[in-house]
Every structure is written in structure tokens, then in C-alpha cells.
């Protein structure tokens, strides 16, 4: 169980420049209530993600990936340590909600709203709370652009129940993009899709990322997917989740379907897989 | 070491149980205090009885109250058991026979929507004009004869019987079990149907080995509603149409403008119903496979 073989790797940016997403000394323990048994989901997490970087986190199921992401999103509070976005503690009052977009594991479209109205929901809430300034018309136009970007033009007035799983997941992605957050947190967004749709959406995601220059923290349990998408892959060890290793992915961009057949891809993929087996 | 942690876990569980009961106790105390305060503000036992006055009025007639409560809850028990048995049996039949289900649907919806108390007197009348229909299942001398000196064995003679009150209680309580049996039986997953076909199971075997068990969680959770409704049915029948049980005591108190007694009787009905309900829910949890009831 203990994890002494792999030295915890501290990742920090070279110079004094602040990282976009930063975990420092983060522990997360569930069930501190006296009657329950406690679960240490994450321990000693130090992790920095630079602006514009695409970082994936991989690890076996139950190792704390979702927990990590929810900590970054401010949904969970760390038991110890701090999580900052753009230098600001996500638990603090100054945390800017419009800076962070979260793409959930399951679609979150509300079934009584049309696709377009679902896209505009975060905008309505953020605007009412004074977190964004642009006019509603601006966002309506943006919604149309986004729907086109993710290939859902013509489905503005459809209801979520009328869409396939893949299409719903596109809605969820655009929902996180509509208010143009600089950070995108994604929790196994394609986990429930079939392989073909997944490959297609992977390419689309990279295109969007390329166009919008966002910082992405991407959770997956698919190692090949992580290698294909990322600049860097972080490997979490199981229970308690710690950073076991990180692997720089030096594949050239833009990446295409052809990238997967490169020798370097196979090498890197093998490296990640190797490491993974070593963990068990 | 192992025993220690086991003991510790039991300690934690006991403590958890105790703390979870704290709100109920607090609610009881708050209720009593509010009652006393309101009574002090109104300060008129004919408009709002003091707790102390209520206690006095009830304890004066404690023997009657005791006998009547046992009578009422015997009826409720019969009504409840009857409702469950008839509900499940009829449910199984209706669920199995598609044609019958279609034919029964409008009648079921209609009878469900009837404000049922109006029917209570009709049930009572049927048993009055046709005395032979009453079935005494089991006669006994009520506990009051042993516990109170003033009560003779003859006074406390009681029985579990199928009569106007209990059939009406069963009628009111019957619907949830009946409907949930149908839902549950029909919710059997396709793969079990296919398994049954592969094994060449007869219709009766399908019911016996698959459908009934699939319906059990539905039935168990609907039994909660059935308990409540059986209680309501019996008490309504008592106070609307008969001169039996604790329900009729409300009417007596009302006619005698005896507010203390009325408060007391109502309180006893409420507490008795609550306890009866909790007991049945607890029994269900013990008797059904784990996880059947949340």
C-alpha cells in the first residue's frame, strides 16, 4: 500500500511566474464525521499547471481523480493545503467563478431547457451575480458559434432527451466554454462514449483548445487518450492518491489521427503503461 | 484487538442511535411547553385544556380508555393484515392477467378517487343487517383486566374479528399494496423473462421464483402507506359510524363538551398510531431481506 518506491515529484514552474492551477500540500480526507470510517483520498499533492498547458491525470478507478478536479473547481474543500487558480485561493471570496469551466463525467443538461437555453444557463447565473459583464445578446451569438464549433448547429431548439449521448456530451462541453473561462477542468468527459465518438471528440477538443488557448486539466483512465491529448501526463498512485510520476509528452502539435501510429506515441504510451503496471 | 474494535463499533452505533433520537425527544419537550404556554395564554379549560387538566380527565376514565385502545388497535391489526393479504393476492392476479388488468383499470382509478369515509357507514350497515357475516378470528381477555382492578374479565372481553370496522379499514388500506404488487411484478427485467423462457418455466413458476420477489421491495415500501391508511380507516369508521373503540370516544367527548378528555383521547390516538406505524416499519426491516426497505 505504501508508496515509498516512487519519490513524490514536485512540479513547479521554472521562474517566479505563477502557475494557472496550483495545488500545494493538498490532503483530502473523506468522512471526518466521528461515526464514519475515514478515507484518505489524496495526500501531499503538489501540482502546478501552467497557463495554456494541457495536463492529464491518470490513475486507477478510485484513486482520487475526481476528488482532485473537484478541489480545483472549489466544489470540495481541501482537508489540508491550498488550491489556487491564477494565484487566488478557490475557497476564498475573491475566487472568480467565470475563470473556471468544469466538464462533468455525465451530461448535466437540464431536461426542460432546450440545448441553447442550457448553454445560456451559466451565463444567466454568472451575470446575475456580477461575475461577467458582456450583454446577453453577445452570449446568444456566442452560443450559436459554439454550437457550430462542436457540430450541433440545427439542434438549438432540441431538448436534451432528443440527443444521443455523444451530442449531450458536446452540449456539456460547450456549457463550460460559453463564458470563456481560462481554465477548463474535465472529468473523464468521454468515458461513457464509444471508441469512435471518443476519437472524434478528442480531435475536436484539441482544435478548440488550440483556438482558445485555455489551460486544461483533463482526467481520464484511458492512458492512450492521455498521451494523445496532453503536454504532460500525471500518474496518481492508488489509495491514498499521490503524484507517483509525470511524463512529458513531446509529440508535435497539431496532433491528428495519424499521431497515434507514430513510433514516439507508441513509446510514450508504453512508458505510461509500464509505469502503471509498476504501481500495482 | 478484534473484540475491542467490535465493541467500539457497537458503542459508536449505540451513540449514533441515541443522538438520532435526540430531536424526537426535543420535539416532545417543545410540544409540551408550547401546549402549556398556549393554555396559560387562553386560560380556559373549555376552549383549550391544560396538560394537567387533560391528564386528570383521561385518568379518571383510564379503564374505558385502556379497553377502547386495545379494541381499536386489535381492529387496526386485523384491517392491516387483511389489506396486505387481499392486496397482494389480487395484485398478483391482476398483474398476471393482462385482459383483467385492462378491464379493471377505470374502476380502480375511480374507487381510488372516492372520498372513502362516506363508505364507512355502508360497511357497518352491511354487517349489522347481516350478522352472520362477522367472523371472529380469536377472542381474548384484554390486558386491562389484569392491569386494572376496576376492570372485570367480562368488560375486557375482546376479539380479533372481521367486521364492519375492520373490513372498512382494510378497504382503505388495500390500494397501496395492491397497486405496488402490480407495479413490482411487471417491473421484472427482460433478461429474467428470457431466462425463464430458456428454462421453460411455467407461468406459475415465473410468479413464484421471479415476479413475486421482484415485487417484494415495492410491496414492502407500500406497506408503510397501508399501515397509515388502515389506521385512518379504522378510526374514521369508529367515529363516523360505530360506537366502538377509541374513535367513538372522541365523539363522546365532543358531545359532552369535555375538552380535556377530547385532547387526551386525540393525543393517545396520535401517539398510538405513531407507535404502531414505527413498529410495523421496524418489523418489516427485520423480516424482509436486507436492502428491501431503505
Amino acid at each position: 500500500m505504501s508508496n515509498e518506491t516512487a519519490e513524490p515529484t514536485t512540479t513547479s514552474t521554472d521562474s517566479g511566474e505563477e502557475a494557472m492551477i496550483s495545488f500545494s500540500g493538498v490532503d483530502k480526507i473523506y468522512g471526518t464525521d466521528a461515526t464514519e470510517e475515514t478515507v484518505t483520498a489524496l495526500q501531499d499533492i503538489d501540482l502546478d499547471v501552467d497557463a495554456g498547458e494541457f495536463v492529464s491525470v491518470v490513475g486507477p478507478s478510485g484513486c482520487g481523480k475526481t476528488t482532485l478536479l473537484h478541489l480545483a473547481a472549489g466544489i470540495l474543500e481541501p482537508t489540508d493545503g491550498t488550491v489556487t487558480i491564477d494565484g487566488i485561493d478557490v475557497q476564498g471570496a475573491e475566487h472568480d467563478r467565470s475563470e473556471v469551466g468544469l466538464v462533468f463525467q455525465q451530461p448535466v443538461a437540464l431536461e426542460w431547457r432546450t440545448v441553447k437555453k442550457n448553454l445560456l444557463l451559466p451565463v444567466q447565473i454568472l451575470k446575475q451575480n456580477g461575475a461577467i459583464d458582456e450583454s446577453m445578446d453577445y452570449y446568444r451569438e456566442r452560443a450559436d458559434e459554439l454550437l457550430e464549433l462542436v457540430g450541433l448547429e440545427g439542434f438549438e431548439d432540441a431538448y436534451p432527451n432528443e440527443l444521443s449521448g455523444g451530442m449531450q456530451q458536446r452540449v456539456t462541453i460547450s456549457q463550460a466554454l460559453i463564458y470563456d473561462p481560462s481554465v477548463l477542468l474535465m472529468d473523464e468527459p468521454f468515458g461513457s462514449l464509444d471508441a469512435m465518438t471518443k476519437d472524434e471528440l478528442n480531435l475536436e477538443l484539441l482544435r478548440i483548445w488550440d483556438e482558445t488557448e485555455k489551460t486544461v486539466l483533463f482526467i481520464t483512465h484511458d492512458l492512450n487518450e492521455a498521451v494523445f491529448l496532453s503536454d504532460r501526463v500525471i500518474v496518481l498512485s492508488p489509495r491514498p492518491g499521490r503524484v507517483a510520476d509525470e511524463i512529458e509528452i513531446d509529440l508535435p502539435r497539431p496532433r491528428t489521427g495519424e499521431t497515434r501510429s507514430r513510433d514516439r506515441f507508441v513509446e510514450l504510451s508504453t512508458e505510461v503503461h509500464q509505469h502503471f503496471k509498476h504501481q500495482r | 484487538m478484534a473484540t475491542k474494535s467490535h465493541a467500539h463499533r457497537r458503542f459508536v452505533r449505540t451513540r449514533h442511535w441515541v443522538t438520532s433520537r435526540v430531536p424526537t425527544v426535543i420535539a416532545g419537550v417543545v410540544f409540551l411547553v408550547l401546549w402549556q404556554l398556549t393554555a396559560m395564554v387562553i386560560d380556559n379549560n373549555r376552549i383549550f385544556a391544560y396538560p394537567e387538566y387533560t391528564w386528570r380527565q383521561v385518568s379518571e376514565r383510564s379503564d374505558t380508555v385502556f379497553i377502547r385502545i386495545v379494541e381499536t388497535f386489535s381492529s387496526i391489526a386485523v384491517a392491516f393484515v387483511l389489506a396486505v393479504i387481499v392486496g397482494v393476492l389480487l395484485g398478483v392476479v391482476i398483474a398476471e392477467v393482462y385482459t383483467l388488468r385492462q378491464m379493471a383499470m377505470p374502476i380502480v382509478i375511480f374507487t381510488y378517487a372516492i372520498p372513502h369515509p362516506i363508505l364507512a357507514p355502508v360497511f357497518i350497515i352491511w354487517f349489522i343487517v347481516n350478522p352472520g357475516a362477522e367472523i371472529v378470528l380469536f377472542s381474548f381477555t384484554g390486558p386491562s383486566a389484569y392491569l386494572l382492578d376496576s376492570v372485570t374479565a367480562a368488560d375486557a372481553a375482546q376479539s380479533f374479528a372481521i367486521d364492519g370496522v375492520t373490513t372498512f379499514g382494510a378497504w382503505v388500506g388495500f390500494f397501496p399494496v395492491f397497486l405496488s404488487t402490480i407495479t413490482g411484478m411487471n417491473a421484472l427485467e427482460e433478461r429474467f423473462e428470457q431466462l425463464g423462457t430458456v428454462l421453460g418455466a411455467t407461468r406459475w413458476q415465473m410468479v413464484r421464483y421471479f415476479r413475486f420477489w421482484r415485487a417484494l421491495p415495492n410491496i414492502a415500501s407500500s406497506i408503510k402507506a397501508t399501515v397509515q391508511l388502515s389506521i385512518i380507516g379504522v378510526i374514521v369508521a369508529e367515529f363516523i359510524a360505530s360506537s366502538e373503540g377509541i374513535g367513538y370516544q372522541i365523539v363522546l367527548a365532543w358531545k359532552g363538551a369535555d375538552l380535556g378528555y377530547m385532547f387526551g383521547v386525540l393525543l393517545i390516538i396520535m401517539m398510538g398510531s405513531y407507535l404502531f406505524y414505527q413498529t410495523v416499519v421496524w418489523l418489516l426491516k427485520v423480516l424482509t431481506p436486507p436492502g428491501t426497505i431503505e
Partner: protein
Amino acid sequence: MIADTLRKLGDRVDGRGGVRLGTERAKRWSLSLLGLVLFLGGWEAVTRGFGLNPQYYPGPTDVYRELSRIWEPILTVLPNTLEAAGVGFVVALVLSIAVAIPLVASDRLGNALMPFVIGVNTVPRIAVTPLVIYWVGFDIGPFDSVGLAAANYVMAVWVAFFPMLIAAIDGFRSIDETTENMLIVYGARTWQEFRYVRLQRALPFIFDGMKTGFILAMIGTVVGEFVSGTPGIGAMASSVIRRTAVGRAIAIVLVLGLISTAVVFLIYLVESRVVHWRESSIVGEG
């Protein structure tokens, strides 16, 4: 639970005999009609065949005859009953939603009051009818102008309120974890949670609560009238019963049942319009 069943009752659930939808519906309707005819026919046959006394064991034709006889008086008192039940129902509905919102919005308030709400919901609330009539009989406070009939309004609210409250609370609470997390990410305030998610999620529950709620409001009113004797269908039933005219009693039950069924059906129609994203059912949670 009951909602589910009645949805299923209308479906061909067991997969025996695949028929296309149009014929399927026609078949269903004709079966229902056949069921009704068989039921009435069987009832009539039993009462006739055994030569039962129609005063105690009336057949459908006896009931029909009684109904046509008391039709006029029913029409004169019906407005009283319907008004009390209707007003009581609406008051209970508005109250149940108004009370449910703070109970769901504040965990503390909810935890403190839920045991009380559930407790009151499990006891036979109808039993306090004589007490309410007794109090209203004092002619104090707001009841002065309406007199004893006020008790019927109070009973309707008192009986219908708690199940509707619990339905509304269950509804407002029926939000899944993912949606809740989404709202946290957007920094939604409590009122925004209700405005954008909880209200819509609660609607099917509230509608189901309304269906039982109306039946319960009718029960409260009718029992109130039955006991107090204020003009209304309940009082009429009471006097009919005292003369052991079972046929008339059943005629009255028939009228009340038809009214309740009609209102429940109306609520269902409104529901299937409003809650367009979800299939509705005729009878709500029991």
C-alpha cells in the same frame, strides 16, 4: 409508486402479444369498457339473482333510481362542498410550497422540523374533526361570518396540507449530485438553485401531491359536513345513512367519486402540459 403502477396499468408490460400502437389503444379502451359493463352487469345479476333487499344491497339500477331522485338536492348543496374543498385545496397547496422552500433551503430548519412533519403525516389527522367543529362553534375570530361551515374549510386544509408538504419537500430535494456540483461551479445562490433547477425538478412531485391533495381535501370537507351537519354533500350522506338508505349513500359516493376523478384528471392534463419533458400519470403518490 401508485403513479408508476397506473402508468403501467395502461401499458402492455409483459411483452405477450405484440400489437401495433393504434390497435393497441383501441383494444385497451374496449377492454376497459367491457370491464365496466361486466362489473355493473355482474353486480346487478347478483342483487337480482339472490333477491337481495335493495334497501341494503342495491343494484346499479336501484342506485341509478336513487340518484335521479336526489339529483336536485345534490345540486343545491354541492357548491358548498366544492367551495370548501376547493378553497382548502388551494390554500393547502400554496402553504405547502411556501413552507417547503425554507425547509429545503435551510438544512438546519429542515433537520429540526422534519421529524415533526413526518410524525404529523403518519397520524390519522381526520380524527380531530370533532375538535375543530367544537372550536369553530365558539364563534370566535375569523370564523364568525361563515359559522360552523368554517370547520369544513379548516379540515380540508388540515388533511391535505401535510402530504402535499412532504411531496413538495421531496420534490425540491430531488436534485442529483452532479447538478448540485454544477451549480456550485457557477457560484449559484440559493434562490438561483430554486429558480433554475429545484422548482422544475419539484413540479412532477407537486403535481402528484396535488392529485392526492385534492382527494384528501374532499375527504376533510365531507367528513366535516358529515359530523357537523352543515349543508353539503357530507351532511346529506349522514342523513341518508341514518335512514339506512344504502342505495342513496352509494349514489352520493358515485357523485363524489366522479368529481374527484374529474379533478384529478384535470390536474393530470395540466401537468402533462406544464411538465412537457417527462411522462405524467393519472394518479399521484399514495
